């Protein structure tokens, strides 16, 4: 490759040809950008490109993965035994708790006047491994090793064993990109578990904190409050733990309280997470209904035009400055209330075939 300039045998004027080619490529990039951003024509192209990129990503991932494997297989007997004992204790606790859970679920069903207790809202789940590569240092994204062939769809909820992690944004055949709840472009509709107050948790560009920017200064919230998903927004079902409030700052001159919360999921240390499919007909299911063209993406938080169809049935509600009225018992999905959620997910129809 040392052949400077001799490799190309084109007798074209250098300046002119470079300028022409620059215009060509620049136009092409702009057209691609336009199509991708405004028209969402390029989902298929992205799908193919993502498939093509996956081997490289796996190759990059292989040294860390090999290192992990080596470390795990060289662990001593004592370490393994200790871990085994710990896991057994955890399992015992969980079983104890789930015993109680079944009783509670039945009781809840009776209270609601339902004949039988409802099945759990999560229909099935699939563990996925994080491909440890750096997607972009400026954004909070992950790559996981499950894709469309596993039935993963765009806008799917991703959890770990402690809480919510995020949702899928781009799905390739064998891989998917996950936007974390801590990405500044991501917002989760949440409910304060203690009071039932609903608000929105926005990412803060670092893996250890979320911001709750839309709470009035007199809102009933304090450190240690648990935030759970409110079920609005059509992506996450109701009642999954998201974060714990760490810091409430009330300023007399500010109309809004400044609230920080720490995500419960171990976002920066996880190596495995769960993709969850939810029952669409369950009361706790995501409000928009999983199958039928959910409006993911919120016009108010996206400067670009959202497809008219996506926002048609209800004008997208701006992030409420005051608290939303505590209407409707938390568990009933309030249909089509288009809350601000997942500003990243482009308003494209979900091609979900779980």
């Amino acid at each position, binding site marked *: *490759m*040392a*052949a*400077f*300039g001799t*490799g*190309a045998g*084109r007798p074209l004027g*250098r*300046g002119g040809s*470079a*300028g022409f*080619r*620059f215009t060509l*490529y*620049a136009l*092409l*990039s*702009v*057209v*691609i*950008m336009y*199509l*991708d*951003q405004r028209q969402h024509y*390029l989902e298929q*192209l*992205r799908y193919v*490109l*993502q498939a*093509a*990129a996956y081997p*490289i*990503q796996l*190759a*990059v991932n292989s040294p*860390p993965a090999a290192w992990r494997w080596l470390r795990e297989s060289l662990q001593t007997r004592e370490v393994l035994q200790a871990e085994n004992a710990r896991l057994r204790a955890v399992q015992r606790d969980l079983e104890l708790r789930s015993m109680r859970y079944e009783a509670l679920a039945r009781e809840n069903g009776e209270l609601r006047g339902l004949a039988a207790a409802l099945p759990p809202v999560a229909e099935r789940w699939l563990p996925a491994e994080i491909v*440890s*590569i*750096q*997607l*972009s*240092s*400026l*954004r909070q*994204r992950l790559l996981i090793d499950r894709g469309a062939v596993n039935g993963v769809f765009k806008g799917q909820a991703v959890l770990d064993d402690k809480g919510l992690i995020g949702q899928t944004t781009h799905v390739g055949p064998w891989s998917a990109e996950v936007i974390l709840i801590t990405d*500044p*472009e991501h917002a989760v509709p949440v409910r304060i578990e203690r009071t039932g107050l609903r608000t929105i948790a926005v990412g803060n*560009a670092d893996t250890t904190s979320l911001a709750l920017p839309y709470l009035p200064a007199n809102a009933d919230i304090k450190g240690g409050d648990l935030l759970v998903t409110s079920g609005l927004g059509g992506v996450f079902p109701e009642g999954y733990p998201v974060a714990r409030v760490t810091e409430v700052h009330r300023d007399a001159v500010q109309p809004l309280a400044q609230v920080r919360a720490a995500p419960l999921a171990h976002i920066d240390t996880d190596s495995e997470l769960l993709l969850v499919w939810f029952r669409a007909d369950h009361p706790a299911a995501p409000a928009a209904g999983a199958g039928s063209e959910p409006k993911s993406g919120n016009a108010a938080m*996206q*400067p*670009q035009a959202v497809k008219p169809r996506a926002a048609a049935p209800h004008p997208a509600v701006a992030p409420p400055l005051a608290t939303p009225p505590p209407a409707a018992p938390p568990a009933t999905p309030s249909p089509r209330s288009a809350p601000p959620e997942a500003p*990243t997910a482009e308003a494209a129809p979900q091609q979900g075939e779980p």
Partner: protein
Amino acid sequence: MLLAALVALILTALPLPPWLDILRPAFLVLMVLYWSVNAPRTGGLGLGFLAGLTLDVFQGPVLGEHALALVLVSYLAVREHQRIRSKPSFQQALFVFAALLIYEFVLFAIDGWSGHPVTSLQRWGHTVTGALVWPPAAAILAYGAGRRA
């Protein structure tokens, strides 16, 4: 060239601790700049476009974003390649610094227009390290190219 591109891509995607990650030079951009300066006919714009598209798949919120920025930067490099090539590596590094600033600014602008703004100062960190890394990186690439010829 392909090998160098692959290595650069791997270096771009390699997981690093966050504090180091801010300082990670944009290896793929440096690689494109090197070939634009030293082999403007074969490298240059086409390579820049393809590399940019790859970067878009890896980390872009919008397809075509990195492609546009890289095509612009490599066009500048191709146009000025004779002048740059004859300079000592310190002055080359200054040019690279300017090119990286332009590159990052294009990304910054497109991020803003497309509704994915990232306004932290961290995004500019790599321009400095990129310029610092340029002399050794160029030397390595030149060595590799010399051996293959």
